[in-house]
């Protein structure tokens, strides 16, 4: 026999106990507890769902998170404003530029600075491009969760065009760190607009392909229709935002309803809603929004105003004391920063209101009485980024 020391046994027992702690909390006499994650393929990241099952039916479930908690709200307290900028674009890493914008806007609000129009427009363009980079992956990923491999590869293939453009402009594919208090780090390089328009064309082709390949698929509809229905009112009370809220029939888009100075109001676009509130509606709304984003970008690029991209800003940024809240319609939903400054080089406190955290909050409510495969469908359709939950 293999010799196992007492120490090893103890370590094992401890590990088991730590793991089981959560299970015990919701385990009762009957039913089976199924522990999904933190290493489960459907939780793309390290979300953990502890579900109590009756057969394949979920009686109750509890998401456990924190496996990727990085303590952003603590970290920002020891950093200066430019340093935070590079930190926050790691919150939702698929649409990272969009994370920087509300933070910068909140800081600008406190400093009473406004970025020049050209910077605002480029910000909006990059914001929408990060939406494309983020949501296009959802379009493939949800199909992947439902068992169709191919759309995921299509998504990666065509997202590349967008990422390449983001890289060409900002230098970073994933973490642009391009937004600055008072404007942008740099202007666009020559030829970028033409290339971006080509990329937008490719994204539209991608949307058509996805529509043919997966959204029109009868099996896909059978899997998604009527699964995970969230009424609009419940969604609001749980703080659900973004496409999830709009898929529940609530016509609320911060880009239109709470303008923060970016250029959305300058172009012609449409907020898509769907009355059903089920997984299919969420997929549908996101697909429409991807198309809409390409249109927004095209229009913005056509009308890009000339001028500088940076306002006059002191070299050492000290933000006057005060409190400011700015939120924008990020790819995942409402992303907001409540910045409390005391006139220092860094903020005193930053409350980061991330979208996925509140979007996932509804999971215990919506996942009662669904089947195990539906758990996957609902999780995929709610669409979260772990960094956005755990922060």
């Amino acid at each position, binding site marked *: 026999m293999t010799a196992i020391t007492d120490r090893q046994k103890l370590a094992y027992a401890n590990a088991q106990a*730590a793991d089981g*702690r959560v299970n015990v*909390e919701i385990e009762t006499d009957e039913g089976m507890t199924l522990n999904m994650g933190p290493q489960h393929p459907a939780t793309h990241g390290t979300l953990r769902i502890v579900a109590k099952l009756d057969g394949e039916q979920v009686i109750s479930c509890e998401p456990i*998170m*924190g496996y990727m*908690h990085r*303590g952003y*709200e*603590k*970290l920002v*307290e*020891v*950093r*200066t404003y430019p340093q935070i900028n590079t930190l926050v674009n790691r919150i939702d890493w698929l649409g990272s530029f969009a994370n920087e914008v509300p933070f910068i806007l909140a800081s600008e*609000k406190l400093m009473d600075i406004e970025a020049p129009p050209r910077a605002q427009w480029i910000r909006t363009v990059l914001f929408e491009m990060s939406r494309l980079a983020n949501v296009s992956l959802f379009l493939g990923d949800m199909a992947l969760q439902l068992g169709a491999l191919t759309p995921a590869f299509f998504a990666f293939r065509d997202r590349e065009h967008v990422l390449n453009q983001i890289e060409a402009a900002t230098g970073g594919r994933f973490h642009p760190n391009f937004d600055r208090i008072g404007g942008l780090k740099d202007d666009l390089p020559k030829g970028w607009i033409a290339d971006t328009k080509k990329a937008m064309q490719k994204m539209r082709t991608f949307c058509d392909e996805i529509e043919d390949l997966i959204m029109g698929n009868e099996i896909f509809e059978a899997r998604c229709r009527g699964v995970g229905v969230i009424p609009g*009112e419940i969604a*609001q*009370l*749980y*703080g*659900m935002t973004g496409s999830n809220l709009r898929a529940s029939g*609530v016509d*609320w888009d911060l880009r239109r*309803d*709470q303008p923060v100075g970016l250029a959305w109001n300058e172009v012609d676009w449409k907020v898509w809603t769907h009355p059903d509130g089920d997984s299919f509606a969420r997929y549908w709304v996101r697909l429409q929004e991807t198309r809409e984003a390409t249109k927004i970008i095209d229009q913005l690029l056509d009308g890009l105003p000339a001028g500088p991209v940076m306002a006059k800003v002191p070299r050492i940024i000290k933000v006057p*004391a*005060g*409190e*400011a*809240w700015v*939120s924008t319609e990020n790819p995942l939903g*409402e992303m*907001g920063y*409540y910045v*409390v400054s*005391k006139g220092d*080089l*860094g903020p005193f*406190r930053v*409350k980061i*209101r991330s979208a996925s*955290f*509140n979007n996932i*909050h509804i999971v215990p*409510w919506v996942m009662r009485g669904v089947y195990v495969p539906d758990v996957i469908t609902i999780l995929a359709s709610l669409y979260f980024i772990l960094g956005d939950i*755990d922060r």
Partner: protein
Amino acid sequence: MSSADGSGVPPDPAEPDTAEAVEPEPAPPVVEPEPEPEPTDELRIGLLAAVTESLGDAVVGSRIVDGDSLTIRVATPAWAEVAKVARHKLHCGFFSFLSGIDWLPSPFGRYEDSPMDEPRPVSTDIVTGVAGGDTRFQVFARVVDLDRKVGIIFKVDVPDDDLAVDTWIHTYPGANWNERETHEMYGIGFRGHPHLIKLYLPGGFEGYPLRKDFPLLARQVKPWPGIVDVEPMPDEAGSDEAAAPSEEAAT
């Protein structure tokens, strides 16, 4: 250092926070409000009036920025009530977030001090922000009325001797995780919350990380590389040949 009761169980939220090294002083009586122009935002003035009408004296502070924000601070006992007012009377159906704040100035700064310097004087004066405050901890939350497109930020003081306020989850179920997070990060209790366990941190974690007196270990284990380390000229200022790196050399 932070309070660490060592028992491994999540501390009772109602437990008075006595283990503080720095006993929070009773806050300075009233924070001087900056002279501001009178608000002219009808919508937000109306909302404030509606809250005041429902709660009376419980509204202890407020601030309106025209077209931008409305902050209302309420008395601690009225915290649960204000949620009901917001949801049912003001029709703020959308819950945005709830969190806490610790107004104690950080004793650590940004960890950018040379170990050879004199330690900086650490202020313990508590200066609260918008809409005032009397205590070290505050809880604040934001709700939105999607029809009128207006959000309200509610603030409440958390009494220093009893770190707890009422829960919001019966009015806004979305407050559940937010309250759990605030609880684990600040040690603020939420009366009436049925499941106030840790959200992010492991079960046995001790201390409340977002409190200002909780050190950030990652910045403590390593000296700041920004300390100027330029050797002076050997013949300059008669410094000895051993030339211990001097801090003043480059500054």
